[in-house]
């Protein structure tokens, strides 16, 4: 688990450096995403970021909530709810990365 999180540092920082700092939100549009996803390498990069970062985040939220929930039954329900949230959003994101940009 620790090793996955160490890998997340270059992945997330690289993504933030390129998209937020160097390119900027004013230069990002459908054509930009289409151009980026034209290369398989960036699709793999985004897929790794999606799976690693979101799993890490939801697991972190589960651990924070477990600090404040006293009842085992509530804890169990919250865990399943978070698992469902993680699965659904990951599937939506993965479908978009595989499907790619469609013309409006």
């Amino acid at each position: 688990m620790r090793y996955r999180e160490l890998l997340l540092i270059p992945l997330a920082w690289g993504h933030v450096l390129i998209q937020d700092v160097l390119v900027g939100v004013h230069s990002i549009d459908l054509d930009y995403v289409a151009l980026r996803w034209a290369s398989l390498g960036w699709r793999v990069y985004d897929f790794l970021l999606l799976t690693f970062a979101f799993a890490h985040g939801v697991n972190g939220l589960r651990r924070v909530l477990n600090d404040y929930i006293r009842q085992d039954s509530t804890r169990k329900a919250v865990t399943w709810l978070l698992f469902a949230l993680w699965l659904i959003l990951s599937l939506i994101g993965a479908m978009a990365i595989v499907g790619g940009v469609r013309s409006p």
Partner: protein
Amino acid sequence: MDSLKLNLLGMARYRGREGQLSFVLHRLAGLGTLLFLAVHILDTSTVYFFPSLYEDAINLYRSTPFMLGEIALVFFVIYHGVNGARIAIFDLFAPDRWNVETQRKSAVWSLVIAILIWLPAAFMMGRSLLVNNFGL
């Protein structure tokens, strides 16, 4: 609700100094980033599911409040990474150095390093905000 109130009050009253402050900042940064990430997965997915809506989502991110939030978000991502790396490195390579004195110093260092990495990024994003939204 009572337990939440107790926790928030306790967090404000408990004088845990550097260790507690880095714990709170680490959690806030993580939760804030997760909230954005969940929204960001959905907005980017519109390129496949509803491509005509993508421009609207991006226009929201181009507004001044969101660009200010973006600058804060970048600090959160950097701090969470630096502080997480600190914890992971001590755990993996120097578990015998988990003592109060070393951790006080390293907690402050991770904040300093995060700010130093963030400043140039904040400068460039701030400039982009001024150029694009205020015509400077």
